[in-house]
């Protein structure tokens, strides 16, 4: 599903966020991406999302070489991916429901169909009763679940998460991780960047470790 082939990302100031990273993640796999902050986890996710382009090497997602995608094709690439952010990136000028329906509206779904799918996603994260609320009144854990619902509402083949449990207490963190496991069980490929080593250790999944931009273990 994801394949990094000798990938280096060097920023204009000469800093190498990633250097010569080689790994691949199969279809339907679930893995953690770990390392200290600044190890290159976010950069790696950004390369998959095409928020950045590598300085060297090749990134493939679903057999598609991302280097061959022109900028105007990036939106269609991103529609195949769901992303969960650490600060959940919710819009506080609209309801929970509207936040979740956003990707569907962007993809051009019929409003009634979109509403049905958005409610199904909310149901999956257990927040169906809060669809009309503004996300600002939700707790941190609930906000993160809204973020997850938004990431999976369009049934992406690949789910990425950048520190999804960053601000949550251990119990909530585990609940969130369990949600990811559920999506993985129905066939979604999941890659989670996290430095919560204790939590990761309790999960029976592959761990890919980065250190100062280099891959020191791909967990296989």
């Amino acid at each position, binding site marked *: 599903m994801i*394949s990094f*082939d000798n990938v280096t990302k060097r920023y204009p100031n000469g800093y190498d966020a990633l250097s010569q990273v*080689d*790994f*691949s993640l*199969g279809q339907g796999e679930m893995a953690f991406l770990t390392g200290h902050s600044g190890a290159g986890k976010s950069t790696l996710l950004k390369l998959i*999302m*095409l*928020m*950045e*382009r590598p300085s060297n090497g090749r990134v*493939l997602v*679903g*057999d*598609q*070489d991302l280097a*061959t995608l022109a*900028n*105007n094709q*990036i*939106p*269609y*690439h*991103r*529609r*195949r991916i769901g*992303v969960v952010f650490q600060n959940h*990136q919710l*819009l506080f*000028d609209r309801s929970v429901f509207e936040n979740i329906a*956003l*990707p569907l*509206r*962007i*993809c*051009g*779904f*019929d*409003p009634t169909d979109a509403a049905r799918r958005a409610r199904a996603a909310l149901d999956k994260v257990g927040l169906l009763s809060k669809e009309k609320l503004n996300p600002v009144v939700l707790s941190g854990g609930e906000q993160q679940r809204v973020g997850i619902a*938004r990431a999976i509402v*369009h*049934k992406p*083949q690949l789910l990425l998460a950048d520190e999804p449990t960053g601000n949550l207490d251990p119990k909530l963190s585990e609940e969130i991780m369990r949600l990811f496991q559920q999506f993985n069980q129905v066939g979604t490929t999941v890659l989670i960047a996290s430095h919560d080593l204790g939590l990761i250790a309790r999960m029976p999944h592959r761990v890919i470790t980065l250190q100062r931009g280099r891959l020191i273990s*791909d967990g*296989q």
Partner: protein
Amino acid sequence: MDNNQRQKGAVRVEPHPKRQAKLHRGAEQFRLNISDQGRSYLRHHQEVARFSFFSLLSSPLTTFMTLAVLAISLALPGALYTGLMNLQQLSQGLDSDPRVALYLDLSVNETAAEQLSRELLLRDDVAATELITAEQGRIEFKAQSGFGEVFDFLDQNPLPAVIMVIPRDLSVVSIPLLQSRLQELPQVDEAIVDMEWVQRLAAFIVLAERAVWVLAALFVMAVLLVVGNTIRLAIESRRDEIIIAKLVGATDAYVRRPFLYDGIWFGIAGGILAWLLIQISLLLLSNPVQKLMQLYNSQFELSGLGFIESIVLLLISILLGLLGAWLAVGRHLRQIQPR
């Protein structure tokens, strides 16, 4: 990692089309058919147009300020253009009949002047004549100039009789010839071709036209900057939304659309306001102009923007709104493009 190896090999050998076909199969879960896409495209346009309209209304002061600057920037060149067109129309009514004015010697009495006028009419090179006797001249001067009382202090009428001669051949070469021939007549004190000021007016109009274009170009820039800046502020306030929309797969067109509608609404409202400003200022001018023209015995009436010109003004305004918005959003979108 033999999976990785296999993929690498496959990519090298297999041509692109197959990979793309595969990719589409994978995307089946959320693929929409063409008619759905068309409908959703139209729906988004409607939604965005409505949303943009009401969001502009929801901040009336900002919107009004922008509109005012827009309308004034458009109205100034528009009004100048209208004035110019009126001037052109006026000059067209004038330069159609260049005439030779024969100022007769003061010693020529009225009967002799009349006879000369009739004689001139018989000439081949003269199309028409009109005699303005000294007495007529005095009366007209008194009526039109407002200095009529001057005559009361004079013993005799200082004005000569004048014969206006309309040449048969109106070409630039033949008029001066006729002028010199008429000048030689003993009764004629002076023969003057009344064309110079018409030529000057024409030259002035050409100059004014150029000035209007230069001004219009400057104001067009002003409009672009004003719209661009307003849209830039709108973009700033919706920055998060743009970033998130882009991350979940919004196209540039999708992100651009609401701001383009902002630009369109600004263009429509600004154009209408500018039109109103022009028409109102013409209305204010029309009375004095009419009075002035009456003094010149002219039927000339100030005309405002016609239907076509009004539409053109509106279209230009919309186009500028759209372009200003496009430039502002384009700049922003380039900033969040992957590098």
